[in-house]
């Protein structure tokens, strides 16, 4: 099919209506007058036609002459000078004060000035009275139409181009007077038909096309032998409302999948935990700075802890094990019973290994969950954030395996370079800080801690010494650059536009 015929087929009913008048009328106002369409409809149709290269919309800013308030009045009632002459012609002479009763004061003043300069009236002052009379010139003038009157007979708004010299004179005169005519910038829209357009206009555009397929047509089969209007598939469509997961949860779900694929079991637990499980069970001495008020959120209430396990932990803190010296201090039950918002998900690992038996090994666990630190909220600190926790409990794991799991995980997160550096945590030995290399920002990002649980942790909880690889990794420091954010607070900002438009997490 020729291009032009395809074009015909695609025409929207509105376009057809506009095309019908287009050979004759190119101006928006004119099209409006002759097509019975609304301005928005015409504009839409013109836009579509322009997209199809049928025409070009030319928008010109033009200065137009429009009528002022007085102008509109004078068109109906006549100019004041004419009316004054008419009155004087009828009354022969008239006192000024009486004139004010017939015409408005400012109109009278203008009219008198004008008529005097033309010698159309004469004014005499006698007995403190001002008397006006019409002259013979005035009488002749009365019969003639002035240039101004002639000018006002035009149709407004009037283009200021192509005025005759007389019109220009009259316009100049009227412009000086109050609120008769003024200039106004206006935009005129004209369609400029292209070559394609010219060809199109030669086609038969009256042919009947079906716009929408209806259930009725399907029932009756009336669609047969009908032509369907082809759509402009490039036309813009409005956005549709859709649901979306929070971007942080997209990442979390992906991370959970990574660990599940590696054969890990999930751990979960309460956010409010006892200091015992969060700290003591992990061999964090009770005077450790992390337990102080400025680091940890404590919650009202008191925890109930199993006496048997508590005794074991007390022993290891105070006296150690056969091979360990312990911390050598008086361990307090009361301190351990305090409630707190969990400071790390290692608390879940501690609780998990406390339930394991030797015959259950090997085991692998993970958790992705919220943790809390008593921090002032700012662009690089959150008091609530996520931690990716993992443990591998097996007689046969070692430090190189720890590095193996970390590398595997971060490879799946899109980071090829992972390194570990010495670190210190009371519950792991050896301990290692985990860092990944951000290729875009060309820098290493610190992501969290890892290590092998100390015998002082595993012995009382498991009942025997056994290597437990463990890690607690941050999430936010990866999320923020991935989503092109700079401020950690943006994660919980909940701006709905942002949540809708943010790119989906894909790794």
């Amino acid at each position: 099919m020729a291009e032009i015929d395809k074009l015909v087929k695609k025409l929207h009913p509105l376009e057809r209506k506009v095309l019908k008048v287009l050979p004759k009328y190119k101006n928006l106002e004119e099209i409006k007058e002759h097509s019975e369409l609304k301005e928005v409809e015409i504009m839409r149709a013109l836009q579509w036609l322009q997209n199809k290269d049928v025409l070009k919309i030319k928008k010109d800013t033009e200065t137009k002459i429009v009528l002022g308030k007085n102008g509109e009045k004078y068109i109906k009632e006549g100019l004041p000078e004419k009316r004054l002459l008419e009155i004087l012609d009828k009354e022969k002479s008239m006192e000024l004060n009486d004139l004010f009763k017939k015409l408005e004061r400012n109109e009278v003043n203008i009219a008198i000035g004008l008529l005097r300069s033309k010698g159309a009236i004469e004014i005499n002052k006698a007995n403190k009275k001002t008397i006006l009379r019409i002259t013979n010139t005035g009488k002749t003038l009365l019969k003639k139409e002035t240039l101004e009157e002639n000018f006002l007979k035009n149709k407004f708004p009037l283009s200021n181009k192509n005025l005759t010299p007389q019109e220009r004179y009259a316009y100049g005169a009227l412009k000086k007077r109050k609120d008769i005519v003024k200039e106004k910038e206006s935009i005129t829209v004209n369609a400029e038909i292209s070559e394609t357009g010219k060809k199109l206009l030669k086609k038969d555009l009256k042919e009947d096309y079906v716009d929408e397929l209806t259930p009725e047509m399907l029932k009756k089969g009336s669609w047969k032998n009908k032509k369907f209007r082809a759509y402009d598939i490039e036309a813009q469509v409005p956005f549709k409302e859709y649901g979306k997961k929070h971007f942080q949860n997209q990442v979390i779900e992906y991370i959970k999948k990574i660990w599940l694929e590696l054969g890990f079991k999930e751990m979960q637990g309460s956010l409010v935990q006892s200091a015992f499980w969060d700290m003591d069970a992990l061999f964090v001495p009770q005077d450790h700075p992390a337990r102080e008020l400025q680091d940890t959120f404590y919650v009202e209430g008191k925890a109930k802890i199993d006496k048997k396990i508590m005794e074991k932990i007390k022993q290891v803190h105070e006296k150690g094990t056969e091979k360990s010296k312990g911390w050598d201090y008086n361990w307090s039950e009361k301190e351990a019973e305090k409630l707190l918002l969990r400071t790390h998900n290692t608390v879940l690992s501690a609780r998990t290994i406390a339930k394991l038996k030797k015959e259950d090994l090997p085991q692998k666990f993970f958790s992705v969950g919220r943790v809390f630190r008593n921090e002032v909220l700012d662009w690089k600190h959150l008091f609530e954030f996520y931690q990716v926790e993992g443990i591998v409990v097996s007689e046969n794991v070692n430090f190189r395996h720890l590095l193996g799991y970390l590398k595997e995980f971060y490879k799946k997160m899109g980071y090829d370079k992972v390194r570990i550096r010495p670190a210190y945590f009371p519950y792991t030995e050896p301990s290692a800080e985990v860092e990944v290399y951000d290729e875009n920002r060309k820098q290493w990002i610190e992501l969290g801690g890892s290590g092998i649980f100390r015998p002082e942790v595993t012995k009382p909880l498991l009942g025997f010494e056994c290597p437990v690889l463990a890690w607690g990794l941050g999430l936010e420091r990866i999320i923020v650059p991935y989503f092109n954010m700079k401020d950690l607070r943006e994660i919980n900002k909940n701006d709905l536009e942002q949540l809708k438009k943010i790119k989906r997490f894909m790794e």
Partner: protein
Amino acid sequence: MPVIEFEKKELMKYLGKKTDETELKEKISFLGTDLEKFDETVKVEIFPNRPDMLSVQGFSRALKTFLGIEKGIKEYNVKSSGRKIIIKDSVKEVRPFTACAIVKNIKFDDEKIKEIMQMQEKLHITYGRNRKKIAIGIYPMEKIKFPITYEARSPEKIMFVPLESSREMNGKEILEKHPKGKDYAHLLKGKEKFPIFVDANKQILSMPPIINSHTVGKIDSDTKDVFIECSGFNLNYLKKALNMIVCNLADMNGEIYSLKLEYGNKKVITPELKPEKMKLEPDYINKILGLSLNKETIKRLLEKMGYNISNNDVLIPAYRTDILHPIDLIEDIAIAYGYDNFEAELPRIDTVAEEMKFEKFKREIRDFMVGNKLIEVKNFQLVSENRNELTKCLIDKVKIKNPLSEEYSRLRGWLIPSLLKNLSENTHNDYPQNIFEIGKIFKKKIDEIIENDRVAVALCNKKSNFTAVKQIFQSLMLDLDLKFEINETEHPSFIEGRVARVSVNGKDVAYIGEINPEVLQNYKIEMPVSVLELNLSELFEVM
């Protein structure tokens, strides 16, 4: 973590050998110490388990073996001073122990005095837990006379001129008026008697853990010999702290002299710098690190970290506080081996993956809500108290004992206020605003805290009403194949007659309703909002 600062030329002097700066900078971070600054002055972050490195002497001692300039344990000589310290029973109730030493022949200058003060301060803060566990005092020998007595007296009977003061004060006054006294008063709170060191001339040297005497407890550039005491509650910790100090002073070319401490009939001699022995099996090392190091290599690596080997025993310097178990030596071997040199290996450990059923359930609920064209929001668990008033619903929320601000001082008791807050902060954005959140709520039950997971939905648009939100609930129940019962209820946050309590299998699990316009006005929301809050934990139980 503690940070120490010193002049680069001091470090170079202690290292005693020209070292390439680039290599030096790299090695410092491989040692596990974070280099913060390296120009004329050097700033290093030290891990809290290595208080022995909290001075330029201690730091360069560790670095020296690590760089291979020296190897193994550094020997320190201790001579007997023949002098003694008498510890009276009266200190038992307040601060029972002390460990003391004398170091002679140090050429003190301003730089050295500064270094000693930094070392003392860093040890106070870290290992000494802000002087609670350990307080350190250093005194010029020429001004005091042995024997020295460590005793406790009632505060009124303690009279001396404290440092940075011009007049005599008694113990009570010091705690009330002296700046240091005010800072550390809590450490002597409620004690009838305060501890003091007194010399043979009855001069009070200091009142630990607060302050030294201005007259006899201050070293200056004329000082050559010093008396050092550490006081606290655990003799082992005090001995370690003392060892760190005397070794550092010995590195400044001082000579260490021991003192005899008389605890009644019990005599203790400090400092004791004989290395400690610990057994370490090569098999254990290789099992933990996944390496196959031979004895020679192990010896070399341990020497690099400042240890010696004697038969199967590792000799540990007397100032090391962090070696509780052979595992601690293994970490040092790993550091000496170089963390960068470990090759990653993913082991073959066959275990079966398992997602928690409840977590899976929550994920399904999230998918359902997204399918219903809802946008997921995520709010903090910590909320402010006054959100109660905005919702007109006064519930007792769980308190944080030490909040940083009122804004985040409670744990949230229900989710809808969070969603209303989100809507009130989004009034500049386009509508509809249909949102949901899955999150925890907290309730007090006597001493315990009950946590539940819930899902909340808020429909905020021109046509939002009870029907719209009930439709969502109804289709969720259909999706989960659950039957529910809906009952009239009253709730101050909702429009009367447009709020329902919903139960599943006899358990009340949800509220559905249209938010009261007064509440919307409180939140400055000018669009109707209908909501649903469903307890997922309880629903999961009855399913």
